[in-house]
């Protein structure tokens, strides 16, 4: 293999580039990134960076002394993959020919129809998004967050600490019920009301009002919530439009085997855009976790370099964390399908506990609030138990 192109220059793409070099690949390495920035860390964008505690230099994912001997094509959007010519087409007309391709184009924030062109309305996914939101939050006033998921909840928490008047609107009866289940979704989202942040659940958003600047969020039940700034945190969709027509199999992102291999030889996919086969459950699952973007590229790169002649290892159980209102939330496993959840240490009232999810008596997930030590132990045992 003489040229490998990594399409996507965030954590998954960087991890793939590192893995290539660590595995002794010494050919040409091209990293293509739509954003103009070198790889940066996204989790702080809704937390420390938004709060102003850390700056842009702190977000850099590369070490100062790191040298990957890669060609960085930044500010370059991929628009197509030509399987016969083995080439990636870029929006500016350039073409990158490569023997091996790592697809790491991530996911993009879903937007609210009708919000285009209205000042004060934000999504939060990129550094540029975070800069713009930070500037608006600095004006103070009333923030309305649409969506009670993790990004929305973290923005609400940061804005509360900055002194804004915050309302969170969630269409489902309970926020975070998908990732955490109903019971624990209610416990974790109670952090909002603990701090006097309004939480409106079970009501959809009809639209936004305002001429040039947003003035209110209009709800399906007829209520109107005044707003100076609005954050739309309603999830993300995989960035795979550019692969339409390439012949690669797409199904909720790029459909992959248990080692990231796609339906095209010499092409693997990693990170938020990749829908990997999960040998634990026997189904495909697109995981949007930071740790997946960090850890999984190693397996995909091994498969790419070995032309598929590898036995994929069993990946660690999916892990994610969140920080809200000074509380550390940690979760490993999958809540979906659990038939019980029990608090095994601490108490939910104290917002400091460890809860275990089980299905037919078998542990399938663990949630910790403000219990990093106990959680780490549980996660370690979990890794053993699940394999």
């Amino acid at each position, binding site marked *: 293999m003489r040229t490998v192109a990594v399409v996507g220059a965030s954590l998954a793409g960087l991890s793939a580039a590192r893995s290539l070099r660590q595995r002794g690949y010494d050919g040409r390495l091209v990293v293509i990134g739509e954003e103009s920035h070198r790889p940066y860390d996204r989790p702080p964008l809704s937390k*420390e960076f938004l709060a102003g505690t850390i700056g842009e230099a702190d977000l850099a994912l*590369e*070490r100062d002394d790191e040298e990957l001997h890669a060609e960085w094509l930044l500010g370059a959007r991929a628009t197509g993959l030509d399987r016969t010519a083995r080439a990636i087409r870029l929006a500016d007309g350039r073409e990158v020919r490569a023997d091996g391709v790592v697809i790491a184009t991530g996911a993009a924030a879903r937007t609210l129809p009708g919000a285009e062109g209205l000042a004060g309305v934000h999504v939060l996914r990129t550094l540029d998004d975070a800069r713009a939101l930070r500037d608006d939050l600095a004006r103070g006033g009333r923030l309305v967050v649409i969506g009670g998921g993790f990004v929305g909840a973290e923005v609400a928490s940061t804005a509360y600490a900055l002194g804004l008047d915050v309302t969170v609107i969630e269409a489902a009866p309970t926020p975070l019920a998908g990732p955490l289940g109903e019971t624990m979704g209610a416990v974790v989202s109670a952090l909002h009301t603990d701090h006097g942040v309004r939480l409106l659940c079970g009501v959809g958003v009809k639209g936004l009002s305002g001429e040039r600047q947003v003035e209110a969020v209009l709800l399906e039940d007829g209520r109107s919530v005044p707003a100076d700034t609005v954050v739309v945190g309603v999830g993300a969709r995989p960035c795979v439009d550019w692969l339409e027509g390439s012949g690669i199999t797409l199904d909720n992102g790029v459909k992959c085997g248990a080692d990231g291999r796609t339906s095209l030889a010499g092409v693997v996919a990693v990170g938020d855009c990749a829908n990997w086969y999960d040998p634990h459950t026997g189904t495909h699952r697109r995981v949007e976790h*930071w740790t997946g973007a960090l*850890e999984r590229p190693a397996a995909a790169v091994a498969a790419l370099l070995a032309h598929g002649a590898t036995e994929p290892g069993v990946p660690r159980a999916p892990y994610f*964390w969140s920080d809200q209102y000074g509380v*550390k939330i940690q979760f490993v496993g999958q809540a979906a399908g659990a038939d019980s959840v029990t608090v095994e240490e601490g108490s939910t009232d104290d917002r400091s506990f460890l809860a275990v999810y089980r299905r037919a008596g078998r542990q399938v997930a663990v949630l910790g609030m403000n219990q*990093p*030590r106990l959680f*780490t132990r549980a996660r370690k045992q979990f890794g053993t138990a699940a394999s």
Partner: protein
Amino acid sequence: MIPACRLADLPRGEAHRLDIEPPVSVFHTDDGELFAIDDTCTHQDASLADGWLEGCEVECPLHASKFDLRTGAVDAPPAKLPVRTHEVVVEDGMVHVRLSADAPNLPPCISARLAGGAA
């Protein structure tokens, strides 16, 4: 030298945190070796004593960076800087730490607080 704890009170696979500024932790590996490093992850305010000890590495309890107890080196993001290592001396069953004279690599949020800046 700073006395940390009795060796008998620090089983293998465990860590003991010294609440000094900045905090330092002594790790007793499964192979019976003792190491001392700065307790705070260089990425964010997390106690490495709460982390995941495997061999001569400890993984931060919050994110995924692993630190080599022998050198302080970090393997992967989000942390980018090593932690300081300190010398461990065992005398009469008591574990002591001889602190490094190097400047610590504290995470930005802690550095700002210690400098009296806005945090």
